[in-house]
């Protein structure tokens, strides 16, 4: 079973009639069957989110964070993607065992998704009013007029000025930030319990990023939604997330409370990620990077998947895959997780070689 089950009893909304968490991914396995072979994209991922909670899923491109989200939504392209194991429990019910029709009805109403690039994710040939209103018309059977009215209210909710005018406009008439607001408005239409935001700010410039994150946070708290925030931007995560799950090569390599994780990351990969954030106090020095590239999922390294890039790698890392070790309310998939947890500044430097000044306390 998932390590998550060992955690404190989850907070539930009133009247919940299920055990466990609001949304729970349990030991999920997904593979892509391509012409070049089978790529094991997700290898036993487990995470969960509850009402009012924000889980940040962190990782490089190709780490499997978006594929996990698409599998939860049931919008994974099959073929090439196939779920080969695990469960996705939403309100206690395994989504993977549901009929197509039942899953369709959960989309947008139970679990909704905000995509990365709103310009391509919105249909260019329909007005935003049509695209938002479509949810009310087709899912709730409202009239055109009612749907239009509700669309205007939603645009107002996500703080788009002049919603009555804007509702008649097309996606290309909006700026990047406004477009992402439209996307968010659309995802909120049917009042979902869980919102998955897949890199919602990646395509935006920095000032707009902050506004969008604030908006998401605010709406999440207002509506007591569970929020899964998929990102590779550590700056975004720190302000918003309650918990962080770091993914690498289709596995969760570290999971912890947001503050704990930032204060003392216990996996070399997380340490590397945190080190590669540019810092003002290290101005003039070369920016730390994680050497090498993420592994090809067609040829996953033996042992610990991170060992070819890890400055701490030992013989055991090349031969044996470490389990997700419980470090007391936090987890790390590293043979030296205990050592990392108990390290002091000096030892960090020894473990991680030239990656100096790792963690600011």
């Amino acid at each position: 079973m998932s390590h998550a089950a060992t955690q404190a009893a989850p907070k539930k909304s009133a009247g919940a009639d299920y055990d466990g968490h609001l949304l729970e991914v349990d030991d999920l396995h997904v593979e892509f069957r391509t012409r070049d072979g089978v790529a094991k994209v997700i290898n036993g991922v487990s995470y969960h989110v509850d009402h009012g909670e924000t889980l940040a899923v962190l990782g490089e491109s190709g780490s499997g964070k978006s594929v996990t989200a698409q599998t939860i939504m049931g919008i994974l392209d099959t073929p090439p993607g196939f779920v080969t194991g695990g469960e996705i429990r939403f309100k206690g019910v395994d989504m993977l065992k549901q009929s197509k029709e039942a899953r369709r009805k959960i989309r947008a109403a139970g679990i909704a998704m905000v995509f990365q690039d709103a310009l391509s994710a919105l249909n260019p040939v329909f007005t935003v009013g049509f695209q938002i209103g479509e949810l009310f018309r087709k899912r709730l059977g409202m009239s055109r007029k009612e749907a239009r009215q509700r669309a205007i209210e939603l645009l107002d909710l996500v703080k788009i000025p002049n919603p009555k005018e804007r509702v008649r406009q097309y996606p290309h008439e909006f700026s990047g930030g406004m477009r992402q607001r439209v996307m968010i408005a659309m995802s909120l239409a049917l009042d979902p319990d869980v919102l998955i935001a897949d890199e919602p700010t990646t395509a935006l410039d920095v000032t707009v990023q902050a506004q969008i994150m604030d908006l998401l946070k605010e709406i999440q708290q207002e509506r007591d939604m569970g929020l899964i925030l998929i990102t590779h931007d550590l700056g975004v995560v720190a302000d918003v997330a309650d918990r962080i799950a770091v993914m690498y090569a289709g596995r969760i390599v570290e999971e912890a409370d947001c503050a704990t994780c930032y204060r003392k990351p216990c996996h070399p990969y997380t340490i590397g990620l945190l080190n590669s954030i540019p810092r003002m106090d290290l101005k003039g020095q070369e920016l730390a990077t994680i050497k090498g590239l993420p592994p090809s999922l067609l040829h996953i390294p033996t042992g610990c998947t991170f060992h070819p890039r890890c400055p701490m790698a030992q013989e055991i890392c090349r031969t044996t895959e470490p389990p997700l070790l419980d470090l007391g309310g936090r987890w790390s998939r590293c043979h030296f997780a205990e050592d990392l947890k108990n390290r002091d500044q000096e030892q960090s430097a020894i473990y991680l070689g030239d990656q100096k000044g790792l963690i600011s306390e």
Partner: protein
Amino acid sequence: MGRYALRRLLQLIPVLFGTTFLIYWLVWSLPGNAFAGKCGPRLCEQSYIDEMRDRYNLDDPLIVQYFKYMWDMVRFDFGTTYSGEQVSEVLSTALPITMKLALVAVLIEGVIGITAGVLTGLKRGGFLDNMVLVSTLFLISLPVFVVGFLLQYLFGVKWGIIDPSVSEDPSFSELIIPGLVLASGQMAYISRLTRSSIAENNRADYVRTAVAKGLTRGRVVSVHLLRNSLIPIITFLGAEIGTFMGGAIVTEGIFNIQGVGGVVFDAVRGQEAGTVVPIVTVIVLIYLLANLIVDLLYAVLDPRIRYE
């Protein structure tokens, strides 16, 4: 949208003058004396030739001839054929028949081509996909007269379902088989064009969004996917209407349809510039208008065009 339409309309003017001038100039400068051989085995009288030259203003400079001709056209005076028939009469019987045939052909082409394209584009690599690919390749490779004679023989002679040649004023149902023949080659193109367009757009992010909105598969395909995929197809079909309006000489010939194609063909063969020029002018005009409508439709389908 209004300004876009107006701009497109204004663009038609230089194109119209350019094409009609070229046609006028080229057709009248065909070598040989068009009037000399009009009197059977004898040479024509000089007085007849002079009269005809005078009627078509052939002694004026070319540019003056052209504008005199255009002025007549503007007043809907299309002139007469050499045998004295009003060209407008000829047109008014031939054009509706051609229009009917073009309409039938484009409908067949659109409905069958798009349906096949959508079905195969959604499920590539399947049995249906391969079947359509092979049969379209077959259709594209066959010249239209082969398809024409084959269908005429099978339906008209062997099975006796249709008359091998249509009546003088054919009804829509008589034109189904000729329309199918006319549409056959382009139908294959349409289905392939639709197939690739659908397959490409099916991977688009907005289709994924539509699925994530919990819409039914039917709605995702028929509203979100189709609208975007049909934009290039509409352009192609519009141009097709224009082409078909120019007459389908081969198909008309096979089924003995008294359309524009046959009239123009006979006129060209008889060096009847006085008939060719006004009819071709009308065809050009129709072609340009069809293209204008396509451009406007394009802007309706794709809002991004309007603001360029």
